[in-house]
């Protein structure tokens, strides 16, 4: 139940990729027949990606994943517009692919405002409005957060930026196959996506660049991707992305309402059956499969290990799991005390999860939390204090 980290590649997607390894292996930039087939396969995939997000095929550029798309969008836009201004606005809860890129840009002469979020993880339009200066060239706010699942008011941000002629990028890596996306209606100028989050292969993604928007190149070299992104095309990956995204957006409402219902059952059980537990993120404006809760008095990595032992994959915002000093910047940004952030658990359900999975997961989580609390000095103290107060 860790679909936000990655998904298995759909066997039908792998099937579609296979011929492009060893049979139709031409270099799409070459001239001969083998190469022309590759070229056609790439253009076919480009159409599928465009269709899935309401774009035109010539607005889609293939990359090596969400990270490259984010790096390209931000660095490409920043350096292209440097003459107009050097101010960038983003949010405090972005993925590191955005945050670390912003830090890089700060070292190279740009000023970055990191918008705070409310207790549910949403950016406030007032904060955005207040942050804009006449030097603001770019706003980058993620479509939905990978940890707490909170969905941002993207159409509002899009309209706001378009009105002021500020470029608007959104990291939609967590969104494809979970929420409908329409770049035109939502006034999005740049959008990042990554195949392995929706049953496509790892190492392939795309950047949507609205027609007329000019950003600098990022990977310099050969003339691939209309001279905008160099490097021999990962043809099987591109084909896989195309097949996966088409499947991801089909029957979206049906699929996601099923997942949402399952998630809600799991969430309600956890909140009711395990005391001293809180929901992180927004109750309704959240990704359908995402569930993020904090269990007081215990640490998330040890919880993950117990769940793993029970066959349940999950993730946590605890520092101990990532090897960094601080717990998740997202959980801190929504105002969680560090020790509560350490006790967070993220589950993300996917299409293959069932009611039984959910029941099993809830039972195991309960057992694991009880077990870890039993050995936690914080919990023991809490119990003692409570019994004194009674």
């Amino acid at each position, binding site marked *: 139940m860790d679909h936000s980290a990655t998904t298995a590649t759909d066997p039908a997607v792998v099937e579609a990729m296979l011929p492009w390894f060893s049979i139709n292996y031409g270099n799409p930039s070459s001239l001969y027949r083998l190469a022309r087939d590759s070229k056609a396969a790439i253009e076919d995939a480009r159409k599928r990606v465009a269709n899935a997000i309401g774009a035109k095929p010539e607005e889609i550029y293939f990359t090596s994943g969400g990270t490259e798309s984010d790096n390209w969008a931000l660095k490409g836009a920043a350096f292209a517009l440097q003459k107009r201004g050097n101010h960038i606005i983003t949010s405090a809860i972005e993925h590191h692919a955005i945050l670390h890129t912003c830090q890089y840009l700060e070292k190279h002469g740009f000023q970055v405002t990191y918008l705070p979020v409310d207790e549910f993880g949403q950016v406030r339009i007032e904060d955005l409005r207040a942050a804009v200066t006449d030097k603001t060239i770019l706003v980058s706010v993620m479509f939905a957060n990978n940890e707490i699942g909170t969905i941002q008011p993207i159409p509002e941000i899009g309209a706001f930026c378009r009105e002021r002629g500020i470029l608007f990028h959104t990291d939609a890596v967590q969104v494809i196959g979970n929420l409908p996306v329409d770049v035109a209606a939502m006034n999005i100028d740049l959008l990042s996506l990554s195949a392995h989050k929706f049953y496509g292969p790892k190492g392939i993604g795309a950047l949507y660049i609205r027609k007329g928007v000019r950003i600098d190149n990022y990977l310099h070299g050969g003339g691939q991707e209309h001279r905008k992104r160099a490097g021999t095309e990962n043809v099987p990956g591109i084909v896989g992305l195309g097949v996966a995204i088409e499947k991801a957006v089909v029957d979206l409402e049906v699929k996601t309402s099923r997942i949402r219902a399952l998630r809600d059952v799991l969430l309600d059980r956890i909140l009711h059956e395990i005391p001293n537990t809180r929901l992180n993120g927004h109750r309704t404006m959240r990704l359908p499969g995402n569930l993020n809760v904090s269990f007081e008095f215990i640490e998330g*990595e*040890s919880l993950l*290990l117990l769940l793993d032992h029970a066959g349940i994959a999950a993730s946590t915002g605890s520092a101990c799991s990532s090897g960094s000093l601080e717990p998740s910047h997202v959980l801190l940004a929504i105002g969680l005390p560090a020790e509560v952030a350490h006790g967070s658990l993220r589950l993300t359900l996917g299409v293959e999860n069932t009611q039984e999975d959910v029941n099993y997961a809830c039972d195991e989580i309960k057992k694991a939390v009880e077990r870890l609390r039993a*050995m936690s*000095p*914080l919990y023991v103290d809490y119990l003692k204090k409570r019994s004194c107060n009674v």
Partner: protein
Amino acid sequence: MYSEKVMDHFMNPRNQGEIPDADGVGEVGNPTCGDIMRIFLTVKDNIITDVKFQTFGCGAAIASSSMATELIKGKTLEEAWEVSNKAVAEALEGLPPIKMHCSVLAEEGIHKAINDYRIKNGLEPWEEKGGHTHSHDDLTDEE
């Protein structure tokens, strides 16, 4: 990422619990950093006859507590004092580099508990040899 020994001590922690009227108690770590360890000692004739721990922390922290208590049980206080974080890590068949601080925490917890016993018994607390404290210094390589 963890050795089998770590997983064994994490899944089946030895000496987990509390000694209500312990002769020495030591607590180290802090909740903001995500780990707290509490060590309880029963000391008879300078020998640690019983030891228990409570830990809030990651798998490595729990396994380190478990292993450390095993290592000092039945030892004299002097012997227990000499059990280093390295010895704990080695007994666990290694810890990932970013988890070495958990073994440091265990060493510190024991030291604190021993000195708590010594102070309660009117003895001078022993001095830390210096060197490591609970730190994440090895993690600053970020980007």
